[in-house]
């Protein structure tokens, strides 16, 4: 088990190198660069543009810049400098990380708490009224774009998005502020959670139906176990495949909800990334992509470990 975890952690290192290479050259492929926005500005002369380019290091060939970037990361933990904010990108990302991760984790928690019991219920009463109703609602949830659902909910609740009422922004943390947060935060969690929730519920239902038809279930019944105990076995087996899904979900919520986060006016990394992309703020974009890749890796690592803990077949091979 220990060697399994160490092996899985060590694999992250070469993976991150490959990811850094891909991130760099993907952003490099984007037409233009940070100074492109100055080209049409009559107040900035071509000489000035050359000067800015030189100062930002954009006059160097891509390979050189990549090696330099990598060297800075490894030796100093310096992920580069945001052209637009004129601050180290790592600081910018840290500032938004707290909200990003807490909203993502609460969303996942919310999805699981709702989706798993509904999926189980649906599978235990298949092709009955409530199963059909849940299926119908689930497909609506999958079909509605998140940002649109956000707009509807904001309209219905007369909310302007954000996580705090204006008087609490920048105020020190008090119970009143926390209460205010709770009043706001359910909206993004419900909105972002809904589509994934519907999918999860369907997967859980499918897993349950698969497991209910598995031969060992018949064998358990033949041993005379009461239905409740049989169900426990079925649910545990049906839950395992869901764990790998959870591992993949974290990055999905980060990157898949950019527009929703803009609509909801959230202080998370999604909208921030979007602006950086438009600005050709190369180092910020690359670092953000690296960060998502890293979170994916961590998510998968945790999912694998959890799976190994729960499934002896994985633990022992």
């Amino acid at each position, binding site marked *: 088990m220990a060697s399994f975890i160490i092996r899985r952690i060590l694999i992250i290192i070469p993976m991150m190198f490959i990811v850094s290479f891909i991130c760099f050259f993907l952003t490099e492929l984007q037409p233009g660069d940070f100074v492109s926005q100055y080209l049409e500005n009559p107040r900035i002369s071509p000489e000035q543009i050359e000067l800015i380019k030189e100062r930002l290091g954009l006059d160097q060939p891509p390979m050189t810049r990549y090696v330099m970037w990598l060297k800075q990361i490894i030796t100093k933990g310096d992920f580069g400098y945001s052209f637009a904010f004129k601050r180290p990108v790592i600081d910018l990302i840290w500032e938004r990380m707290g909200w990003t991760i807490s909203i993502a984790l609460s969303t996942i928690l919310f999805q699981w708490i709702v989706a798993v019991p509904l999926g189980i219920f649906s599978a235990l009463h298949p092709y009955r009224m409530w199963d059909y109703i849940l299926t119908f609602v689930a497909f609506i949830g999958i079909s509605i774009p998140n940002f649109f659902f956000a707009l509807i909910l904001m309209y219905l609740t007369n909310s302007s998005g954000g996580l705090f009422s204006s008087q609490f922004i920048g105020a020190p943390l008090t119970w009143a502020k926390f209460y205010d947060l709770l009043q706001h935060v359910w909206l993004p969690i419900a909105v972002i959670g809904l589509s994934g929730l519907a999918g999860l519920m369907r997967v859980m239902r499918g897993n349950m139906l698969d497991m209910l038809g*598995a*031969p*060992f279930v*018949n*064998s*358990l*019944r*033949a*041993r*005379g*176990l*009461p*239905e409740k*105990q049989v169900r426990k*076995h079925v649910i*545990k*087996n049906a839950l*395992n495949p869901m764990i790998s899904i959870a591992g993949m979900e974290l990055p999905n919520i980060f990157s898949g909800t950019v527009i929703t986060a803009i609509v909801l006016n959230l202080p998370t990394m999604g909208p921030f990334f979007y602006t950086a992309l438009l600005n050709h703020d190369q180092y910020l974009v690359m670092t953000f992509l690296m960060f998502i890749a890293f979170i994916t890796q961590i998510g998968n690592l945790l999912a694998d470990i959890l799976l190994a803990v*729960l*499934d*002896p*077949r994985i633990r*022992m091979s």
Partner: protein
Amino acid sequence: MSIIQVEHLKSFFKTDEGIVKAVDDVSFELRENEILALVGESGCGKSVTAQTILGLLKSPPAMIEGSIKYHGQELVGLSNKAYHKLRGKEIGMIFQEPMSAFDPLYTVGDQAAEAVAVHSKLNKPEIRDKIIAMFNKVGIPEAENRYDEYPHQMSGGMLQRMLIALTLACDPKVLIADEPTTALDVTIQAQVLNLMRDLQNEFNTSIIFITHDLGVVAELSDRIHVMYAGKIVEKADVVELFDHPKHPYTKGLLASRLKREMKGQILPFIKGTVPRAFEFPEGCRFHPRCPHAMEICKQKDPDPVAFENGHVCSCWLYLKQNKTDGVESQ
């Protein structure tokens, strides 16, 4: 004394393609201390019969009619709750694929203990001792250590022994063995068969042994019922059946067994295949494949004919012979 009395049992399934008559008007009895073999090709309704007895078929789609009496208690229509008291404790069942008869996430010991705990008042250490003793009895080496291992760590033969041990640890009066040796390789098959015979002698369990392998049956069973397409076509003692098979299907099955002299020849087989369950032919269901098929066979299902020594066979050949004297027995 009969323990299980099955009368005119029908297990039909409603499907999109029509009604599947998986078991159609089957009657038989299981006597105390005997091994009764249900023999037939795949898809002839052997397993469905077994699952019907244990109430394992979900209804709907299953439609069950007729009567199954266990010690006089009617099982058809019994509530699920009442069945829980019966399954495992009174009637145990072992399955064809030992690999898929265990929950992969729990140790074999835990699963055995769970089953025993449902049916007995023993405490945990007592249950553990009982199961380890049973593991030893079925010939599992290092039973103590094996108790805490997972199904995927065992071989098929080992798992089948464990399933037998687990089932017998609940002290059932009847054991239904659904092709318990089919998924095992030949040497292990023989071991498991010997084991079952020894255990039957020791625990006085009555066994319904389901198989398609006549060789297995010859070694093990007291009486044989041959099934074809959802019906029992012939019933006899094991010696009687092998020496004087009556039904053309039984004769075909016996002729299909391999012998050494057949080397280099085309092997004997029964022409055609078992018809699909929702399109069984009219009349005797075997007639399209039967070398002796007559006009009457296509029209009407034959009634069972009784011979000496409890030998029963459902075939027009014998019914005709009874009606019109002087027709030569073939």
